[in-house]
């Protein structure tokens, strides 16, 4: 009577974990990159101004677009 998860389920969980770690890693890199590109290192204000907000929104959109594009190039389907 083996109570351990069946191999199929085990790998399903591991695959889910790896997918989540990959999304989280991608997200963290995006946050850092967009903060650096849009907000900079001055910190004379504690609020984002509207130029920074627009920049952050576009940065996220472009980052996801770039992420998808890299996959296409790697798959040779550019």
């Amino acid at each position: 009577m083996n109570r351990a998860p069946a191999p199929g389920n085990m790998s399903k969980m591991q695959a889910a974990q790896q997918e989540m770690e990959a999304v989280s890693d991608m997200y963290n890199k995006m946050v850092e990159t967009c903060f650096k590109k849009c907000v900079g290192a001055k910190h004379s204000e504690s609020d984002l101004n509207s130029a920074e907000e627009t920049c952050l929104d576009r940065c996220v959109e472009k980052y996801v677009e770039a992420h998808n594009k890299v996959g296409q190039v790697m798959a040779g389907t550019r």
Partner: protein
Amino acid sequence: MAFAGGMSMDDQRAFNALLEQMQISDSLKMYNRLVERCFNDCVNDFSSNGLSRKENPCITRCVEKYLKSTQRTGAKFSEVQAAQQAAAGR
């Protein structure tokens, strides 16, 4: 998210525990990155002890700005992901 589809109850429970652990570990690392960034941006003078009267409020503003920035980035990311999934037809 559709990650946990097709799992047994036991596996889902284990998966949720794992998920929770990852979130804690993620937020601890985020905290450390935040400290590193704001220290780097705000503290450059080591001629005296303790955070100076210029460095102290700089760190406060940096943290507040960073948190607002993460919030905005996260909201936009969810929006873009939802639009993508809608476009992919599921």
